[in-house]
């Protein structure tokens, strides 16, 4: 195997670099003349810059619903590598502030980068030590600017983020996708969940008469039901997920949990299984 990561995906040229010494870092200024002539090797580091054109390790849906006094969010613990269930204990709900939780679907490395960005911002605020900090809407705006600027550079962060929180007595639930599209709604579901779970969430909100008529316990039940549907039908999901609750009291992110499922009926369906 070729152990130079920078060579991966690039065609090898025997004429130019017969001993495979190039590219190695710190070649600025002494790139062999012939190398610069290879198409795409115009960059000073000797490599073409690459942009994310597809996600690699991915997380599936994130769900969020408002209830009386707060917001409840759910995401499973799986990070897939294509169809491979690669990492099975990844946390995709992250507390970013006292009253704010970030949930991420899409590329996991991009998510971890964004998490780092926001955490850095929060540390900056904390160090100012002047009684001010970023509230949920402020973090949302910041996240939106980050996502929009990256898409404008044609180098997007391949995620859909969900931000849940409570600010000045009001619950906040918003999403931002890789093109920087922001929207807020009483219920949000990303990825496959936008097809499978969102209709369930919206129906619950509608039949119960809005977020103010949903209790914390009911919100948990609704999300568990939605996660079960996703586990049944979304092949990139896993029956191990976490719930995040954000209220005026603060944030609680649960331990991973699962729901009871029933597969026996599958045996009787023709063309399914054996």
């Amino acid at each position, binding site marked *: 195997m070729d152990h130079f990561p920078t060579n991966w995906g690039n065609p090898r040229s025997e004429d130019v670099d017969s001993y495979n010494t190039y590219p190695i870092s710190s070649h600025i200024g002494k790139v062999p003349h012939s190398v610069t002539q290879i198409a795409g090797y115009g960059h000073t580091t000797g490599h073409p810059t690459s*942009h994310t*054109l597809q996600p690699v390790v991915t997380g599936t849906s994130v769900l969020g619903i408002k209830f009386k006094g707060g917001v409840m969010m759910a995401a499973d613990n799986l990070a897939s590598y294509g169809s491979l269930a690669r990492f099975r204990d990844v946390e995709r709900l992250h507390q970013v502030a006292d009253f704010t939780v970030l949930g991420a679907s899409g590329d996991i490395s991009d998510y971890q980068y964004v998490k780092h960005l926001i955490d850095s911002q929060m540390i900056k605020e904390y160090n100012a030590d002047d009684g001010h900090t970023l509230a949920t809407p402020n973090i949302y705006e910041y996240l*939106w600017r980050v996502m*929009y600027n990256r*898409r*404008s550079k*044609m*180098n*997007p962060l391949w995620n859909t983020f969900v931000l849940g929180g409570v600010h000045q007595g009001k619950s906040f639930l918003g*999403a931002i*996708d890789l*093109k*920087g*599209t*922001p*929207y*807020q*709604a009483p219920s949000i579901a990303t990825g496959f969940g*936008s*097809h499978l779970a*969102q209709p369930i969430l919206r129906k619950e909100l509608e039949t119960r008469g809005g977020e103010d008529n949903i209790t914390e316990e009911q919100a948990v039940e609704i999300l568990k039901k939605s996660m079960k549907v996703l586990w049944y039908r979304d092949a990139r999901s896993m029956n191990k997920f976490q719930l995040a609750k954000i209220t005026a009291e603060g944030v609680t992110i649960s331990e991973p949990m699962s729901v009871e499922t029933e597969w026996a009926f599958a045996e009787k369906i023709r063309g399914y299984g054996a």
Partner: protein
Amino acid sequence: MFSTYPGQAVIDHPVSAPIEHRFDPYVDNGGTLLSIAGNDFCVVAADTRQSEGYSINSRYVPKSVKLSDKTVISMGGCYADCLTLTKRIQQSMEWYHHAHGKVMSTAAVAQMLSIMLYQKRFFPFYSWCILGGLDEEGKGAVYTYDPVGSYERETCRCAGSASSLIQPFLDNQINFKNQESRQRTLTKDEVLRITKDSFTSATERDIYTGDYLEIFVITNTGVEVQKIDLKKD
């Protein structure tokens, strides 16, 4: 592509389309907006649905923003671009306020918006803008734009996903096209009725229009906002 033996069906289109390995930074979030200028008032209206493909992201994402007591902007297209552009306009208006000690007039905002759009001529904001307000004489003014900044002042305009449904109706009902004999200026109530009818009708046929209708009425005394239900299917 070609038949290799007699009787084989000729396929005149490629069996598999090439995959584009390029990021498309734009998305059409749908939605319809409209503005009608009256003698001493202006109406700016837009639905509040935000869509992405066949999915509804949210039923309430306002498309119109009050810029001053005399000016309201409404935008449809790529929502991220629209929101960014709105912020830029607001900041420029703030600088104008600082520099000149007065609020920017509708005509000045109109000219500035054209320049802002054209400045991004080769990576445009994907946004259909309609600027509604009162001019220096207190008369209703509507300015309409294409995404790269061409603009003109009109009496009425509809833009966005249901514009092809509503605009012909407005041509007939507001500008009295093909009914020259009935030409007259409309009252605020008439304009509001036509606006509401336009949106309830468009909601029937356009899947990207619906949920709520938000109407801004700009008069000498300021800006009033009404929110009206549309069908949510």
